[in-house]
Structure formats: C-alpha cells, structure tokens
C-alpha cells in the first residue's frame, strides 16, 4: 500500500538530507496525583504524544518529535468518548515516507491503547501533496491489516517502533 515507499528506505539517497531538528521534550514529571492509588488519571494529549514522540523516522536517525512530524498540539483525545485523533506533518510536501510514518503511528497506537479507542491518524491539512490518498489508506482497516501481513513493511514498522539503542 505504500506507493513507491520502498524507494527511500535503505537506498542511501535521502529525500530531505538536511532536516531541521527540534528539541526533545523531557520525561513527563510525575505528579502527586499520579502516585495516589485512588485518583484515576485520564488518558490525555500528553500521554498520547509520549506514545508517538519516540517513534523513529524511517530514514533519519531521529525521532518524529525531533523532526516536528508530531506535536502535542496536533493530538486530540477524549478518554470518556474513547476517541483519539493524531495529525502528523511530513517534513516535505512530497515525502514518500508519509504513508509509512502514518502506518507506524497507527500501529503504535493500536498496540498501546485500550481496544475501546477509535483512532484516526491523518496528515496535517495542507502539508502534503497526496494528503487525501494517504489519509484514505490509513483510515482503511483492511488495508492496514494487509500491510502488516507484508514482511518487508512489518520489518520497517517494527524498526520505527523499536527503542533506539
């Protein structure tokens, strides 16, 4: 499903060889409320952001946070309604990695959030040439499932989701 996506991975030629790098946010400080057994902590935007900010970019040795592909302000979440929406911003409008990045975010959320959540991963409006097509693919459950059957794609996604050594 990643149209021409394989071209960038491991081909040695980076599409955007010299990206801007952003500061990493630190670990979320632990509050007294979080340490209190009784107080429930709702799933909030920062918690979702913490799930996805450390995903590795498929072609740079950098995280999506460092490349500003994901930002906390572009995370919408409602714990009571069990919905989450994440918009991501490809580094350049013709980035062929966009679908792959979206897929990695989606898989990370699928593995990390309770099943009750309905999740929507899409490109920040107006930041990619094929925004519509990519969004459509990411929203299609069957295509996402099929993509993960593909060993090569699963390998790249897993690499993006592995903790960086």
């Amino acid at each position, binding site marked *: 499903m990643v149209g021409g996506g394989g071209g960038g991975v491991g081909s040695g030629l980076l599409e955007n060889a010299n990206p801007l790098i952003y500061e990493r946010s630190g670990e979320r400080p632990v509050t007294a409320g*979080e340490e209190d057994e009784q107080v429930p*902590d709702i799933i909030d935007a920062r918690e979702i952001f913490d799930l996805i900010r450390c995903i590795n970019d498929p072609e740079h040795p950098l995280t999506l946070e460092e490349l500003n592909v994901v930002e906390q302000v572009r995370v919408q979440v409602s714990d009571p309604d069990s919905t989450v929406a994440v918009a991501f911003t490809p580094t350049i409008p013709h980035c062929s990695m966009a679908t792959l990045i979206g897929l990695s975010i989606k898989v990370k959320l699928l593995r990390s959030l309770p099943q009750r959540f309905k999740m929507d991963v899409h490109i920040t409006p107006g930041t990619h040439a094929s925004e519509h097509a990519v969004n459509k693919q990411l929203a299609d459950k069957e295509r996402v499932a099929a993509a993960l059957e593909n060993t090569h794609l699963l390998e790249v996604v897993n690499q993006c989701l592995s903790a960086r050594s």
Partner: protein
Amino acid sequence: MAAAAPEAGVPTGALWGLVQDFVMGQQDGPAEQVVADVKSGSYTVLQVVEALGSSLENPEPQTRARGIQLLSQVLLQCHSLLLEKEVVHLILFYENRLKDHHLVIPSVLQGLRALSLCVTMPPGLAVSVLKAIFQEVHVQSLLQVDRHTVYNIIINFMRTREEGPFVEELFEVTSCYFPIDFTPPPNDPHGIQRDDLILSLRVVLASTPQFAEFLLPLLIEKVDSEILSAKLDSLQTLNACCAIYGQKELKDFLPSLWASIRREVFQTASEQVEAEGLAALHSLTACLSRSVLSADAEDLLDPFLSNILQDCRHHLCEPDMKLVWPSAKLLQAAAGASARACDHITSHVLPLLLEQFHKHSQSNQRRTILEMILGFLKLQKWSYDDKDERPLCGFKDQLCLLVFMALADSSAQLQLVGIRALTVLGAQPDFLSSEDLEQTVDHLYRLSFLEEDSQRCRVAALEASGALATLYPGAFSNHLIPKLAEELHRGESDFARGDGSPKCSPHLRCLQALSAVSTNPSIVKETLPLLLEHLGRINKGNVVTGPSDIIAVCQSLQQVAEKCQQDPESYWYFHQTAVPCLFALAVQASMPEKEPSVLREVLLEDEVLAAMVSVIGTATTHLSPELAAQSVTHIVSLFLDGNTSFLPENSFPSRFQPFQDGSSGQRRLVALLMAFVCSLPQNVEIPRLNQLMRELLELSCCRSCPFSSNAAAKCFAGLLNKHPAGQQLDEFLQLAVDTVEAGLGSGPTRHQAFTLLLWVTKALVLRYHPHSSSLTTQLMGLLSDPELGPAAADGFSLLMSDCTDVLTRAGHAEVRIMFRQRFFTDNVPALVQGFHAAPQDVKPNYLKGLSHVLHRLPKPVLLPELPTLLSLLLEALSCSDSVVQLCTLSCLQPLLLEAPQVMSLHVDTLVTKFLNLSSSPSMAVRIGALQCMHALTRLPTPVLLPYKPQVIRALAKPLDDKKRLVRKEAVSARGEWFLLGSPGS
C-alpha cells in the same frame, strides 16, 4: 656473604653458577637471586655482563636470547644504579643486538625498555635508540606484547621530550590503532576494557604538540566519518590535545575543525556527540585564548570567534527560530572558555537577542530568547578589576527591563526563566541598583503568593528570594519582612473569624516565604521572633486551629533551622530562642486544666509533636559540645525535676512530672526530650544518665499510651547506641534485656516489650554490637508468635530502614555503613531455614521479614545471592501479602535481566504469576509485575514464542488501567512482546 663488599673479592663463582642455571639450565629462579644480589651491592651490573660472556656469543639463538633475557631482567629492576658511562655502553650493546635473530628481539626490547627508564641518559641517545628500533625492527609485525614494549619505550622517551626527527614514524606506529575498535573476548583473564585502550592511546596521541600536523587531519577525518564511536573518540582526543597545543599547532586546521564541530552539533541525533562537540569547541577556544603569541604572530582568537558568530548569529534571528538552540549552545561553549571569548561573543550576541525579544510578541518565543540570554548571563563569571569593564554593564537597563517584563508576563514558563535570570543578574556584584532591588523584592513577593497551579513559579520565586537575601539582606529586611509580618497578622485575624485555612492558604505561603528568606543571620533575627510570636498567638487564640496550622509553622521553623546550620552564631541564636519556646508551649499544653481545651489537645497530637521533634532535632545536631552542655543541664532537669526556670513563660498551674505520676499529656512530651538528647554530639555528657535511662525503661512499658512508651523506647535506644562500650553500657543493656524478658512473658505489656526489643536491637545492629545477634535471634523467634508474628515481620523493615528522628547519622548516632549487608549475611540463612521449618500459617511472616531485608539491600550486593534464593522467591510470588509481592518482583526483575538462562526454566510459572499480579489492587505491585513482564522479553525468544499470543491478549487489560504510571509500563511491556520474533526487531 652479603657483608662482603664487591671490592673485597667477590665470589664470582656463585654468580657464574646462577647464570649457568638460568641460561643453560632453563630455570627461572636464579634470576631473582641475581637481581637481589645486584641490588644489595654484591655484584655490579658489569660483573653480570662478564659472567654472561660466552652465552651472549653462543651460536644458538635460544641461548643468546636467554642470556639477554637475564641481563634485561636485572636492568629492569636495577636501572637506577647505573652510571651514565654504563648506560652508554649498554645502549650501544643493545642497539647492536637489534640486528640479531628474531627470537632474541623480545629480550632486547625489554632491555631497552629498562634503559629508557634511566634518568642518567646522555642527550641524543633516545633518538639513536628509536632510530635503531625503526631501522632494524618492523614494529607493526611484532607480537602484541612486544609492540607494547615498544610503546612503553616511546612513552618513556616522550617524558624526556626527545622524539626529535622521528615524529612521523612515531605517529605512524601509534596512530594506526586509532580509533580503537576492540571488544574484550569473553572470559578475558586480563580484564582489559575498550575504554582502557582508548584512554591509553589518547595519552600517547595527545602527549606532544609535534603530532599536531598529522593528528589533526586524522581527527577531522574521523569526526566526519559515519561511525558514532569514532566521532566521540576523535572529539575527546581533540579535547585532550587542546590542553597542550598552542595556536601554532591549530592555526591551519581551525576552519576545518570548526566546520566539523558545527556540523555535528547542528545535525547529530546523539546527545553524546553534541556534548563532546561542544566540549571540544570550548577547549579549542580556551587554547587559543591562552596561547602566548610571538611578536610577529597574529592573534587567532578574534577571527576564530568572528567565524563562529558569522555562522551562528543569523540562526538566532530567524523568525521561525529553527536551529536557535544548537547555535546558542555553540556560542555559549566558546564564550565559556575565557574572559576574552566571553566578552567578544556577549558583546555581539546580547544586543541581537535583546532586540529579538522585543521583536517577538509570543510568550513562548520570548521564553526561548530569554533562556538563551540566561545562558550567556551565567557565563559572566570572570572577575574584572574595573566595574565598567564588565561586558554586561552597558546592557544593565535593558536587561532589567526585559527581566521585569518576563516576571510580569502571564506565561508561567516565561516567568520561570525570568526568575532564574533575575537570580543570575543579582549575583553579579554591584549590578542591581537599589531601585532595581526594590522592584525585585516586589516581584518576588507577588510571585511567592501565586495560586496552586503556578507551583513551579512559586517555588522558584522562593528559591530566588533565598539566594538574593543572602546578598542583599537590607533590601529584604526593609521591603519584604514588614509585608510578610502584616500578612501573617491578617491570617491570624482570619483564623479568629473562623475562616478555615485550606492547605494552600496565604497563611501557608507567608510561612514559606519567611523561611525562604532566612538565609542571612540578620534576617533570621527578624523572622524567627515573627514565627515564634505567631505560634504563641495561635496557641492563645480562642478559636479552633487544626493541627495542620501548627505543623506548618513548625515546618517553617525547621527550614529556618536548616538554613542556620552553616553559621554557628545564628544557629545558637535559633537554638537558644526556639527550643525553650517550644518546650514552654508544650509544657503549658500538658498541664491539667479544669476545662479541657481543644487547642491544647491539638498541640499534643502525635503529628504536631512529631513536627516539633523535627525542629528541636534540627536545632540541636550542629551545636558545639560546649553550648550543647549548657542546654542539656536545663532540659534533663526539666524532665527529672520539673525545673521550668529556663522556659520563657514558666508560671504553670501545677508541676511538670512526666516520669512520675504526671498526666498522660506530660508523658507524651518524652518525644521532645528524645528529639533533644538523641541529637547531641557523642562527646556531650548527659547528666544523671543512669536515672534517666531507668525512667525511660519504666515508661517504655507503660500501657496507657502507646505514643509515650514508643517515644521512651526510642529515646532509650538512641542513647544506648551512642554510649561508649564499657561496664555502664553492659548494665543498661542488661536492664533492657530483663525488662523485655519480663514484658514478653506476661500478657498485658507484650506489645510494649516487643517495641522495646525492636528498638534496642536496632540500636545495637547499627553499631555492630556483639550482643545484637542474640537480640536478632529473639526477634526472629517471634515471627512464629501467633500474637506478635506480623508485627515482628514488619519490625525487620524498621531494622533495615533509616529513621528520621532517632538513630540518624545527622544526629551523631553510631551507624556503620555496611550494617545492612552484614545483617543480610548474618541472618538470611536463618530466616530461610525458619521459613522452611515454620508451620503453614506463619510462613508469610518469614517471607515478609525476608522481603524487608532483601528490599533494602543495595542491588549489587543482592544480585549474586539471588540464585540461591530463587525457589523461595518463586514461592513468594504466590503470597497474598503485597509487601512480599512487591519485594519479590523487585528481586526477580534484575535476575531476569542478568540470568535469563536460569530463569527460562521457570518461564511458565513466571508468565502466569506476573500476569496475575498485573491486576493486583496495589498500584506498585501492578507496576512491578509489568516491569517483570517487560524484563521477561530478555529470555531466549524460542522459549517465549509459545506464550506470545496469550501475553499480548492479557496485556491489553492493563493498557486501560486507571493509573497512568501503570499504563506506561503496560505499553512498553506489550510493545516489546509484539516485537518478539517479528521481522525488524
């Protein structure tokens, strides 16, 4: 034989025999003897050479090698005895031998190494030796050990700076190893680590400026490579070189070095590379700053800095502020290197940043800019003789304006940076004017009373007040203290009106502000009376005050006491003023009244007394023995005789007799006695100790009030721990043992006797007293006691943990650092045995006791012991007690990481138990269980794969845990399980 001097006719026959045994007989022993004889003066080195004579010319290379080996061994240990003339001869001999058979070469090199250590080496010989080595021997193809010898020779000569014409050869043979790429083989008996080699090689490479022209291009090449470790090693080596280089060495390479460092800092994904790049830039700048210039050389520092500014400044001004941070870090790394660099860069960058601040209007952009400015302000640590020379002087008004704007901004983030900047500006001598200071105090006052949601700003404002009050006590006395005093009064009338005082009231803020500024002795003289009067007034008020109000005042007092600990005069002032006042209030409250007053009871509540205990302890630990002796007389006499004459208000309706038949309220004040006597330095004599100890023992078994008996037991234990060994200590101990025996036997005071046993045991365990083992055994016996068993199990926690009020190091208790390890070694076998022998219903007590011991033990000590405890730990996973569960999990987690092979035998049990515990009611247990689920992924993948679907399904549940900290662990554990056996992991 040793008495015979060489000139008295040496029995060289003996020497000849030893030499023959070594060379022809192939025995190693005689070498030691020859060395010893040369050292003792029995023979000279020359005589050894003569005795070797024919073996050195023997046609067999093995024999020649053996002969030279002996000579080299002698030289290695006796080179200091050689005369200059002998050194010359020996070197000529050895140089010649370098032409010999390859079997001989190792011994020849050893000899040269010995000679390279000679201090009496005539000039030029080092060059000659190196020349001979490089001519005759192909160093790169020698065995490792022999190459090592060559490097040792080089290093030894380096110390005498004689590398002369061989710089390039020397560089070639050493630099071919750079960067080190070495992984120690498994079970390496030498224990050489990669870092050892890196550091040793770096010493050689950075040993002489003469390598610069060869080394710097190599370093640049390696920084530019793709390999992370090579980048790091090169940057660190560059850093080391800057310590000995001057601008002559660096001159031709500066542009390339800067380009490489800049690229790394701008683009790297590794924080380590960034840090090393910045450190290298710092060192380069420092090196250029301190280089002594020859008359005709130009100073390279300014052009270098201009170059940096040129490449970085435009990033500071770009409207989208991308790359600002790397640029600022580079500029700050260079500016931090010297006063000149700081001056140069600050004077260019500050105007730019000040302008940028006003250009941007959003708070978060302003925050970034102010944070950068703060970075540059922090670098202004150089001392200037002339005030006007300081680079900041010209910017004073603008900086103050900007900082005050930040403090008044609505963004907490910007305020926070503003507070930090203000602290740094205030620390610049004579920088802030008195008007600035007044404004500063106003801002800090306002910020100290911020609402709960601006907690961080408020804390930062309090810290800043403390820091600035030490420097400008006058400004704070004049402008802040009166406002705080007024606020405190207002709070009192609010109490009087019955307005409840929630946790974060202005009253609390005010107390915190008062203690925060008590950093200067003159301020303490104002704040302490304010706090004590305030305490007296709320005590006298007619309205109900909750314990939390009094506790808040005590906490504030304690912080003041802590701040006074540095200054003996202030500290004594605090002790003399606060301690009698607190005792007076407590004694007053403990007096029997016709009508019971709620307020008095509040003052005697457990937690209020505990807060007072902290104040008294903190105000006593740092007393000098002389001053402590003055106080101890008063306080002991207060408790034994009811002598209240030293208290500020001492007309009480009846006598104070806590140890006699005084009211239960009076007995509770033994906690305050404990706070004082158990905090005294060890060499302060306590008057009437014998009587005091007996009273304490008696009170410790008093049934009516657990608080008083517990305090008495603690006080007794605290004094026992510090008492010097001897007859009196043995007597006290015997008394305690008798009291415990009597109490444990009979029904009503068993709990009190147990508490006393526990505290006395702790007092002895801490000081390694020989009697501690019998008491510990007694305590262990109680684990199977139906009534006291659970308490005994929890008692092990008390034994192993640090107390806050008695038996503390701060309170001068005798605490041996390894007491936990020792307790573990001495008692764990018995605990394990006790567990196996115990009946089923008390087994959990043993597990819990053991858990407490294991839990407090440092991990490195615990790890090697864990495999022997493994079966017990697996059993403990099924225990229903959450303390046992938690401890077991924290023991198993490192074991999973360190010993995956052993653990895979139990994978079935582990998966099942951990998953069960991941839904425990205790949050800590859930977290621990999930961490163990994560650690399980370290086991060999084939062992785990059968469990993967089940585990992934089961871990979906904790993803929806109500606690965020639990979800976080569930996410990382589940993520790892997904990756198991999956492509790309």
